[in-house]
């Protein structure tokens, strides 16, 4: 699948944003951080900014962004619609939490309710994002049980990396966050490894023979293409990345997204001076961002849509 930068930015930014929101909400609900308005402002601000940038980025992928509001209506059947509705809905507990945290409660319990409701809203939104892809039987590499869980775990991981940075900058106690982040990163690494194995070994059962029904006569090979320049379908779904290149990028993304941030997180468990903590957290964050962008790029680039069997023969 063509790795569209707008969609990559959408899923990674919004994932990190919802992840950070989850960490902040958990921290708020469990009193793991001081109720510092500046922390609330910058933390939730960052989370909202990431989520909003992500959502706006996703509208760049639309042909008619001015009609985007229509995307909220088909939540009964469409994961994309559900994601949109959940994303919009999530702004409510975020707003409640944010206002309470920064300006003080307008209603009693607003802080706690905002915090507690943010968690399922954020989780559902990220889950729905993952399900947009996982629900498509046409793309085997996406139609895997691990896809939505990976989205959630990576949201938590990238959010956690940002949480560490936030706490470091504010000089608050961060070992609990660092531990949680390490766990999320380890879990993410395991899931991602399992995922790559799954897609590498998945049987490609859709064949050109079945797609054309001509298998009864033998192997199907394209002769003349229906068009000598790629059309929308092949531009969108005909992207191919070389096996070797993809494997190299997997290693790079794993190193940047998991290995380095895990090391950074371990370092954060030590009692290092705050300025060093900030540096470590910042580098971990940068590494994780680069890593998740690469991981997401691969998620698209390595995915093959069944329609290619009409154009290239073979299987998908």
């Amino acid at each position, binding site marked *: 699948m063509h790795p569209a930068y707008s969609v990559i930015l959408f899923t990674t930014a919004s994932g990190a944003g919802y992840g950070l929101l989850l960490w902040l909400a958990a921290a708020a609900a469990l009193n793991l951080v001081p109720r510092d308005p500046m922390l609330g402002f910058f933390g939730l601000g960052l989370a909202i900014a990431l989520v909003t940038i992500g959502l706006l980025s996703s509208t760049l992928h639309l042909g008619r962004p001015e009609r985007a509001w*229509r995307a909220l209506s*088909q939540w009964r*059947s469409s994961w994309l619609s559900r994601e949109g509705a959940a994303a919009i809905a999530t702004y409510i507990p975020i707003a409640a939490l944010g206002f309470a945290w920064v300006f003080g409660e307008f209603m009693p319990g607003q802080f706690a309710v905002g915090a507690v409701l943010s968690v399922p809203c954020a989780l559902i939104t990220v889950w729905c994002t993952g399900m947009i892809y996982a629900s498509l*039987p046409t793309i085997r590499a996406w139609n895997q049980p691990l896809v939505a869980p990976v989205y959630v775990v990576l949201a938590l991981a990238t959010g956690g990396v940002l949480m560490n940075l936030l706490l470091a900058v504010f000089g608050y106690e961060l070992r609990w966050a660092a531990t949680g982040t390490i766990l999320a990163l380890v879990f993410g690494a395991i899931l991602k490894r399992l995922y790559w194995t799954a897609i590498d070994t998945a049987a490609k059962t859709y064949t050109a023979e079945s797609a054309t029904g001509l298998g009864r*006569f033998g192997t199907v090979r394209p002769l003349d293409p229906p068009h000598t320049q790629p059309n929308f379908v092949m531009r969108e779904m005909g992207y191919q990345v070389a096996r070797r290149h993809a494997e190299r990028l997997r290693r790079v993304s794993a190193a940047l997204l998991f290995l380095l941030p895990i090391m950074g997180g371990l370092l954060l468990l030590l009692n290092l001076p705050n300025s060093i903590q900030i540096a470590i957290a910042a580098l971990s964050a940068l590494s994780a961002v680069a890593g998740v962008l690469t991981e997401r790029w691969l998620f698209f680039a390595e995915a093959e849509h069944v329609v290619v069997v009409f154009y290239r023969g073979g299987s998908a």
Partner: protein
Amino acid sequence: MTSLPETTAKKLGLVIDLDTCVGCQACATSCKEWNAGGYSAPLTDQDAHGSDPHGTWLNRVHSYEVGDGAESRTVHFPRSCLHCETPACVTVCPTGASYKRASDGIVLVNPDTCIGCKLCSWACPYGAREYDYDDGVMKKCTLCVDRIYNESFAPEDRVPACVRACPTGARHFGDLGDPDSAVSQLVSERGGFDLLPEMEFKPVNKYLPPRPRRDQTAQPAPRAVEQPATNSGSLADRFFAWADKTLAR
């Protein structure tokens, strides 16, 4: 409305005869041309006279070779929306612009409400949906909904443009939900099949398979003519003897 109708009163669709298609592209261009006006028009072009000419088409014609050596054959293969009974392209649509009509089963995109998110094209295994780069919305075969009921047309012209155009008669239109219709009978006589049936979208369009060849790979025909006995002179002599008849002018 992305909910699918429980059933549809008719199952209108096409039957494509792969034994008769010669790959002439008439269906593709007549569709392109019909849809330059009418429903969800126009189908736009990008760089039509430049170095990367491509555009929105609703029907694409492939050519394949199948098999090896003497057993191989060439098959020309038109591909367009199959108006599936349970299409994912409808249910994934976030706006309801993609829908399946309850009256006749035609799957359409409402060009006024489509947001061009392209998810439906990801959901379709047949590549039937193309994004129009100028209009910003998704387009697909409409089964010429603006022709088949058109009272300003002569009745025999109320068929999809591709069906009317096809010079070899390889495209047929009708109600696949009616077992007595001409198209249904064609399907049962010729063993019409679904594309990618295992994906369970229940395509309504059917394809008719190429018929067996009648060449040396088929059962050899019995020798029809007994050769005359070879011991009565040379070939030429025998022939001349036979031709030396009294013929009437």
